[in-house]
């Protein structure tokens, strides 16, 4: 059994601590709007300032996502996106980048369909550093979380504003990598965050876990990123990035060089949010 033996997430959070700043996680859906453009964006994200990448595995029925990421998922599938292709993208990405942590985010059915063991082996081999599977709560840990643990691959847990002191131990029990705090009660990309509430929640969360805490859902601007990383370990931006992709498409829904340039411009802007704040 070939287990995961990289420590990219751990190293990242250690480095961030040394640099006294929070990290910037960027979400894109693999193969959105097509393989070529998506891969180019992926490969250039670290240089633009992304500390960590969340690569979405497209799914036909993304239950926890708002209209923006739903649309991205459908564009990806329409262009031929699949789990197999997502793993190939990771492999390509790793040919030139051995440092930036990359976690896969998505829903369970494509993985279940692919076969859990087969998936874990291929994901580790491709260079994946963790899994965020939205529809696998602790109640279903036997499906993928525990098998991933056996392979040493971080299984990243989501916690929400409703995750109270009673619920948290259940969620945190088999958590690894980092904790993904869902900052709003709702779906991705719909509302903006209320920073003060999030700060309190992160503070509370830190009492229960020593794992780094990343905050996602509803983070859109450089200011959001700066605010959130002043009290958490990383901010994750998804829908705002995907929005830029969507807006760059021509009337036939095709992407172009502009798609890549626009996304990278936004990432650079967001990255300034994590780099200026804590040093100041």
């Amino acid at each position, binding site marked *: 059994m070939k287990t995961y033996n990289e420590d990219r997430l751990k190293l990242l959070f250690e480095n961030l601590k040394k640099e006294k700043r929070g990290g910037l996680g960027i979400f894109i859906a693999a193969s959105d709007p097509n393989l070529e453009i998506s891969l180019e964006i992926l490969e250039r994200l670290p240089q633009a300032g992304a500390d960590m990448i969340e690569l979405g595995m*497209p*799914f*036909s*029925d*993304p*239950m*926890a*996502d*708002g*209209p923006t990421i*739903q649309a991205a998922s*459908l564009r990806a*599938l329409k262009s031929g996106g*699949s*789990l*197999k292709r997502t793993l190939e993208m990771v492999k390509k990405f790793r040919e030139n980048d051995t440092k930036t942590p990359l976690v896969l985010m998505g*829903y*369970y*059915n*494509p*993985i*279940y*369909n*692919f076969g859990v063991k087969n998936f874990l082996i291929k994901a580790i081999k491709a260079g994946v550093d963790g899994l965020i599977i*939205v*529809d*696998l*709560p602790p*109640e*279903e840990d036997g499906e993928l979380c525990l098998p991933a643990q056996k392979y040493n691959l971080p299984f990243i*847990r*989501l*916690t*929400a504003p*409703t*995750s*109270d002191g009673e*619920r948290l131990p259940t*969620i945190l029990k088999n958590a690894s990598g980092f904790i993904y705090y*869902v900052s*709003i*009660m*709702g*779906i991705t990309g*719909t509302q903006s965050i209320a920073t003060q509430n999030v700060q309190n929640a992160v503070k509370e969360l830190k009492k229960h876990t020593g794992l780094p805490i990343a905050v996602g859902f509803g983070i859109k601007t450089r200011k959001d990123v700066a605010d959130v990383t002043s009290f958490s370990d990383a901010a994750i931006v998804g829908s705002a990035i995907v929005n830029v992709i969507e807006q760059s498409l021509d009337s036939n829904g095709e992407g172009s060089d502009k798609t890549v340039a626009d996304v990278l411009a936004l990432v650079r802007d967001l990255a300034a949010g994590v780099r200026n704040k804590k040093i100041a």
Partner: protein
Amino acid sequence: MPTTNAPNTLREGPDENGHFGIFGGRYVAETLMPLVLDVENAWKTAKSDPIFWSELEYYRKHYIGRPSPLYFASRLTDYFQGAKLYFKRDELNHTGAHKINNVMGQALIARRMGKTKIIAETGAGQHGVATATACALFNLECEVFMGAEDVIRQKPNVDRMRLLGAKVHSVTSGSATLKDAMNEALRYWVSKADTHFYIIGTVAGPHPYPQMVRDFQCIIGEETKEQMFEAEGKLPDTLVACIGGGSNAIGLFHPFLDDDVEIIGVEAAGLGISTKQHAASLTGGRPGVLHGNRTYLLQDNDGQITEAHSISAGLDYPGIGPEHSWLFETGRIEYVSATDNEALEAFSLCSKLEGIIPALEPSHALAYIKNIISSLPKNHIIVMNMCGRGDKDLEAVIPRLEEMDLL
């Protein structure tokens, strides 16, 4: 109150985590988990509270109109020249289908939880109408999510929901049918956790829904058993019901699972199983995870959910309740299918011979019965669940019947 079951029964599932064998479970986002656990707790408490059941019994009798008759379909029996055919007349319920059986139960639970707002998904619109009805009765705010395509093909039901005071959200995401309506309802629920109760319309979704909805629908089979003893002095030989998500079917079947009775579920074969344009998850799908449970699903090689097709909006769902998947794999229930055209023929035949206009959904069950009944002996008794009436379908059905020269 459901009776306790002896050991070695097929009726004791699911386990405490909502699993029927490998099926069922709670595959939802963490944001939804507290909501689902709240519903489970409320359901557990209600279930063991005699006051809850007596309240439900009151509404069953005086509002829904239960018990529904068990009717001997004599002209169809004569026509087929084979087994005796009975209909369990759940289309005579208030609102015209079995859906209200479940909705009244869940609405009472919502009230017990102090929820003032209700959301629901609907395909054919029957569950939406039933929910809007209960909400009017109990003075609850009601929002129904319905695929944009279904909003068009089931317009009379959309009008009924609006008249009853519900807000209908036309869902355009994905394939704009029932599965997308359910996605959207779940998304909406997450953002309105404090105030809203989600009344799921079928025996699917995360635990405890498949169990809770089943328990509310079991009244169909329990009455049937009693009525059959009264009419024939024995158990029926065969039960037949149509299956989309499978709530009317499990309602009829479940009380008979431990009895020596043949049970047949009829899925929608659409244009034919080989065309891929169908809604037969068991016949043409394989296990997967969607909408909070593991069950048989229509999906492609990559595990992407594919669109179902059926002329009947109520069967047009790419999944099926997890308990059916389990009963399918254990072999206790036989699952077959009937095509759009077969259902249309049965629709016409039943209208003409019995003066009962069936919904397209149970027309599938009758279509299958049509294939087997003539070869069965005269003392063989079949009970079919007439789970809905067909008024809502006329707009879709009439042009097709004209084409087929059946009008």
